[in-house]
């Protein structure tokens, strides 16, 4: 039963890691524009030019 303590602490730490990643991504500006990336992904890669 006491293994629970270790398990829980570990899982909270891992989750905390994800939280930090989220906070960091917000800080670095990833969440500022959530619409344009959806358009950008639709562009095709350039096919080698025939010229």
């Amino acid at each position, binding site marked *: 039963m006491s293994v629970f*303590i270790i398990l*829980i602490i570990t899982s909270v730490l891992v*989750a905390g890691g994800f939280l930090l990643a989220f906070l960091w991504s*917000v800080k670095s500006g990833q969440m*500022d524009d959530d619409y*344009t990336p959806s*358009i950008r992904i*639709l562009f095709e890669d350039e096919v080698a030019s025939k010229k």
Partner: protein
Amino acid sequence: MVFQLLNENDMCQYYDLTNMPGLTAKGIFTADKFNYLDNQAIQDQLIQFKQGDQAHVVFYLPQIHCVSCVWLLENLHKINPGIIQSQTNFEKKEVKIIFQSSKISLKQVVQLLAFVGYEPMIHLGGNDWQGKKKVNKKQLYKIGIAGFCFSNIMMLSFPEYLSDQVADLGNLRPFFIYLNLILSLPVLVYSASGIFISAYTGLRQKWLNIDAPIALAIMVTFARSVYEILTQTGSGYLDSMSGIVFFMLIGRWFQDKSYDSFAFDRDYTSFFPLGVTVLKEGKEINQSLNEIIKGDLLLVRTGEMIPADSILKEGVALVDYSFVSGENAPIAFESGALLYAGGVQKGRAIHVQVVKPVGHSYITELWNSPLLKQAKNPSQSFVHPWSQYFTYVLFLIAFFAGIYWWIVDTSKILPAVSAVLIVACPCSLLLTVTFTYGNVLRWLGKANMYCKNASVVEAIEKVDTIVFDKTGTLTNHAATKMVYIGVALNPKEQSMIRAVTRESLHPLSQMIYQLLTEEQVGLIQVDQIQHSVAKGTIAESQGHRLIIGSVKLLLEEGIAVNTDYDQSVVCIAIDGLFRGFYKVNHAYREGMSAMMHQLRSKGYEVHLLSGDHPAEGQKLKLQLGADIPMLFDQSPLDKLNYIEQLQNTGKTVMMVGDGLNDAGALQKSDVGVAVTDHTHLFTPASDAIVEGRQVTQLFQFIQYAKKSKRIITLIFILSIVYNLVGMYFATQAMLSPMVAAILMLISSISIVGLSALLSYSYAKPIRS
């Protein structure tokens, strides 16, 4: 040209992406237009970041409207290698360009953008987008932390939900409980801080705002939980508390997003599109206010508003700044002086060079300027008192519910009280009104009826009498034919007439001007002009005295003239002798009689006032109906008095007239609607401006404005019903606080959504 450019750089994909990619590059590409960007000080203002050779700049491109735009803009580096990277933000219509300043200058970047059809709108000194970004980040931090803590607390509270036989933690229990307590602290202290601060600030102003009950609910839940934990009488309600905070924050964030998408785009749809005359290479070009940039040379006629901060180049300015500063007396300026936007030129036409353009929002600010006059119609008065009482009533209900459960079953106090405090949503009271009117204004704007503000929409609803002016309102200038009849005028005399009529905004003057311009008559120096409102103009040029105006004016000046003309005429007299007249064959707008019929069948009283000759009376009676009171030869003062008389008999009057001559009457009426065929005349004395071609839709506009009240009442009732039902369940402790939080956010979003939906669907008759 754009195609060539794209083809050269192998970018023809652009045309595949949408059916209507991009817009054609406007006008001829002149290199001089952006010379001001060579100025180092200006560059410093615009460039966001500069390190070594690399420079960053952000531009607002109003032309962005589709996928191809994004594609083209993000591939700029292929057209010019000096551009390292460009990134667009579609929603904000911005592009961020990173370029090498040694290979390409800022001016060349802008030239390139203009060339492919995306000329940036450059406002020097307007960088307020930075502030908004920071606020959004904080909101996201709070949500992230609240979400993390909330979900972990719920997980750790799981054993509590199950019975003791199934999951007995034994001596692990304290660990779980204290871990919960630790996790709840960031939620209380950081995530909920916004709510607490807002409630506290409100309290300091002796005013309970909507955050007050929520703050109380959170505190009560937390306090009770701590008490239970420390006295070991229970495990507390920390899952509820953190759940409340998390869902409230998510709700607010979602609300903001919905509001942004429902809110109208302020620059384009509901603002009056003030037109300006730009002088380019000797030609006069009509452009919209937001197209002018620094350096443009503008023509400002008598009575026209100065559309941007500019320097006087030619002419003598006599500016009336009453809309801007409240000063009634016009001020005279010499060449080289700086004139501010918003002033009205009272003297003769002048040429000015733009120093700083202003946006439409500035014009609307002036329109609403408190310096103008007393506000005619009180704004949104029927809502405010209610919202004040709401929170007090709420606290009372929560208090009594608490007392009740304290007597009957103490375990239910907390769920009942906190649910009551949270489930109530007063937001509908304030939001509905703002939102609905905002949407109504926007749809009206799209149909080319521009209202000063929301109170105008409310006022339209009360109107029962409509007074129409004739010239310019019911008549269509574009289709009106004008013919000169009389002694032939030599070219010099024609040039004089043309030069004089050029400076006036009066529709008849403009018609003469157009006619003479088509006949390619030249312009001549005019020494003096004197306008007489609604009568005509007296001018001196090259030693000659020219009178252009009504028969009345000529008679006043002592010129013998034949007075029985059977229709509208503009007489010409030179050096005291009557020479001839321009015969005006008024064309009435299509749909006029249908509109009058509609208005009268709905019970509106219709009147017609005209400054024109009674000869048109017969034609009008046929068009509009025989039993409408019609009065002719009305001076602006007569019109004003007529409206006052109507108002004295208890009627609520809407005046529909053209802005130039009817300013007084427009101001006196309860709702003054100015009709304009070209957007150069901006009449701050009016409450709404309608474009000429849409005048016949007046009936539909009024109907729509009336519906807005219906929408608000409907939503109001709906939100009351929602609150009552919610309260019913909450007071009986049948509603968990978390579900209450979710319901509250759903209700405010649904209210906003419903308001947008109803304004949209009711707008069907006016949507083209």
